[in-house]
């Protein structure tokens, strides 16, 4: 798998987002010292504060404060001499964070203040800090590095006393946003997957007379549900982590498109092909069974007549009893016909439904299942580790398309069996 550059529209929107967050940040305080800022060689970090001067350093008496992306980190230094922020690079957990162009020296705090902004230039560097999250917060140690001459990469040379790196707690996601996101994702999952067994949301429904709970699962719809769920969850996950609304790459839309087109084409084949399920549906209608409600009605009619026959308070006898018995028998035959005819089309479990046809395991189905699961795992891993939806190569997207097309192609003879 290759990773390609984020397309320009997403980049543009991301830039806008960064600009807007920067605009929302407080204007940098004016330097109190009129003298030119220096690039001191020997500095020591004495603490970490927010822009209001609250101590952020973990282990200190007033620790517990957190800092989130978009807020300012003040790296307090042992100097009153104004420093040129462009001489220094902020290191978080040993990883340089470039492009913090709004950094300034706050003489009052004796600190270099870094707005923790995520831009297109430093997005990859933030991945090392924010990626693979295991909680809502994360301890992050801080160091500074002096830039080398003529843009040479900096090394972390400024740390705390005795070379120790002070740390603060980075809030990866606020509990409120995380809660909203969790509710959104759970609601989606419940709606799509929670009702998958009891409704026809992920089922063929080719024979509407079958109880929704017994309808067979549809491979096309399942695949579409997988990609929709993955992309939706990933989008929400990335939004709460990064505050970025533009994390949806165009390839995610292609994945949704392939799965949607596969499901749609499969439905078209089912609807328009002169298939055995269609014959069963039409034949059941001729028996007066147009929907599952009619099956329930017939069952109720049988129960009603049986109750009349066994009613000791008002006994039925003679011709009336024979008539009732005949009506019961006729309805029972109708239900038997119904059960016999729908038997080949009733669900045999999710995996068997989507991976087999009437002849058993079907390669064209199994390959769609395998590719979908494999790509799904890669997708999740990519989002977790890289904080971006993976962009699959054209070849892999073509592979998904070919496997979907093969499935639809094989559905034609499959529907005739």
């Amino acid at each position, binding site marked *: 798998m290759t990773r390609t550059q984020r397309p320009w529209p997403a980049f543009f929107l991301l830039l806008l987002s960064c600009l807007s967050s920067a605009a929302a940040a407080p204007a940098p305080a004016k330097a109190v010292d009129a003298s030119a800022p220096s690039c001191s060689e020997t500095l020591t970090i004495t603490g970490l504060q927010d822009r209001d001067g609250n101590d952020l350093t973990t282990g200190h008496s007033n620790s517990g404060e957190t800092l989130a992306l978009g807020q300012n980190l003040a790296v307090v230094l042992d100097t009153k001499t104004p420093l040129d922020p462009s001489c220094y690079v902020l290191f978080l957990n040993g990883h340089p964070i470039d492009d913090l162009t709004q950094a300034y020296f706050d003489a009052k705090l004796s600190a270099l203040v870094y707005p923790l902004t995520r831009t297109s230039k430093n997005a990859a560097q933030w991945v090392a800090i924010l990626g693979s999250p295991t909680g809502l917060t994360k301890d992050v140690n801080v160091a500074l590095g002096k830039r080398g001459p003529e843009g040479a990469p900096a090394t972390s040379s400024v740390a705390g006393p005795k070379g120790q790196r002070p740390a603060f707690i980075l809030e990866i996601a606020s509990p409120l946003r995380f809660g909203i996101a969790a509710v959104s994702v759970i609601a989606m999952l419940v709606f799509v997957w929670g009702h998958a067994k009891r409704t026809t949301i992920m089922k063929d429904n080719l024979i509407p007379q079958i109880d929704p709970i017994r309808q067979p699962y549809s491979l096309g719809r399942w695949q579409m549900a997988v990609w929709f769920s993955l992309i939706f969850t990933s989008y929400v996950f990335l939004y709460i982590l990064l505050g970025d609304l533009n994390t949806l790459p165009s390839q995610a839309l292609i994945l949704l498109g392939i799965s949607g087109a596969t499901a749609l084409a499969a439905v078209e084949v089912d609807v328009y092909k002169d*298939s055995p399920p269609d014959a069963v549906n039409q*034949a059941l209608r001729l028996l007066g069974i147009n929907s599952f409600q009619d099956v329930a009605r017939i069952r109720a009619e049988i129960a009603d007549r049986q109750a009349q026959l066994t009613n000791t308070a008002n006994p039925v006898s003679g011709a009336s009893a024979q008539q009732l018995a*005949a009506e019961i028998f006729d309805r029972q035959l109708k239900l038997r016909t119904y059960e*016999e005819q729908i038997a080949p089309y009733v669900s045999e479990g999710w995996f068997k439904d989507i991976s087999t046809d009437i002849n058993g395991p079907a390669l064209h189905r199994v390959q769609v299942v395998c590719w979908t699961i494999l790509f799904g795992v890669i997708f999740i891993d990519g989002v977790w580790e890289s904080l971006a939806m993976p962009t699959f190569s054209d070849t892999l997207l073509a592979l998904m398309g070919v496997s979907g097309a093969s499935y639809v192609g094989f559905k034609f003879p499959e529907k005739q069996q």
Partner: protein
Amino acid sequence: MDIKHVVVLMLENRSFDCMLGKLYPSDGTFEGLTGQETNDYAGRPVPVWAAKSINPDIATIPDPDPGELFTDMTKQLFADGAVTAPPAMSGFAANYMTLPKADKPFLPNSVMHYFTPEQVPVISTLARSFAVCDQWYASAPCQTWPNRFFAHTGTAQGSVNNGNFPIPFPAPSIFGLLSAHNVSWRVYFHDVPQSLLLRDVWLRAPLHYRFFDQFLVDASSIEPRYFTDAFLRNIPNDEHPPHNVLFGEQLIARVYTALRQSPSWKNTLFILTFDEHGGCYDHMPPPAAVPPDNFRQDGFAFDRYGVRVPAVIVSPYIPAGLKLRAAPQGLPQIGPPYPFDHTSILATVRKLFGLGSPLLARDAIAPDVLSALSLTIPCNDGPESLSATPPPVSTANVVARARVAPNHMQDGLDRMARSLPAAAPAAVPPPPAAMAPSLIQNVATAQASATLRVKDFLRL
């Protein structure tokens, strides 16, 4: 002649002229159509005719189904003439036009239509490769059930139409006779076997009745598919108008090919015929017949044969191109010699397997077909196989066929099925009783319930 297997396939409701009238030129040796035959309707002659080619519209003529009640047949045979005179065969077109209005307009010439040999190649090929019988008449000018009962028992016990029979039908049948003589037999059927009405098969039915699919693996009597099966998209292959004859052709081809490729081919006699003419025109007047017993209905003593029906006799002992006749110079209107009829099957089987006395007076005088088996060695192998390709079946077509009300035959079979006990009796069958009344329903409903009841009864 070493015949060990007799296979009978009886299709539905086509006259001899309709299916085989042009098999050979009509001359002294073959009583086919000359093309000059007509019936009058509204003062104008309606001639016999054939289409130049076959398609689903042609293959389902006549549509709607002509009248086939005893009263209809009397009109078809005698028009307005006296029923005591030799039938003029002049009332087919006029009787057809007395049908109630249908969904689509219909013409009097529908019943005057016939198929050319090229349009029904399977039956024509068999007829030319083996023997065609142009003197085989339905046993009575009655509906399906009476004629099928003649084939099974030699009598209809006085019933001229379908559905008026007691169930089970009490007359002793050829099947009972075969069992009594320890001769094995089977009935292969598609949906609802009419012969299941017979009282003396009830005890043995689960042992002897099998679905047609099994015929191909363990090859006797075959019953075609009478109903449209909307679930499996199966079209009837009984050739009953307006069912497409090409599905019947396919059934004949399958039966013949299975027999021809069977190790038992050299010992097999295959009789293909139709139960009755079903309102389709035939120009040969049926002669007077010997009543099988003393039963009568509507003044009819079963003393006249029904309209001529196709009959093809197949065996490697039959010389190709044989025209089998009971009276080579033509039949008298009052016998003897008597023509072939469905009781000829009984006579043939009885003679072949030494089953003793005739069942009744009709089959006692019926000619058997064994005279056709004149080769000393079974050397006429005929075509190695036959095939027919009916038109593709669409769900819409099947649904249209299954939505209509059952025809008389289907309604009768449905009533029979609803009258069957839940399972075949293990001891003495119950006495005959009235059949269940008709239900107003469609073919699909009748087929579904009747098939299930038959499966229960036969424990299949």
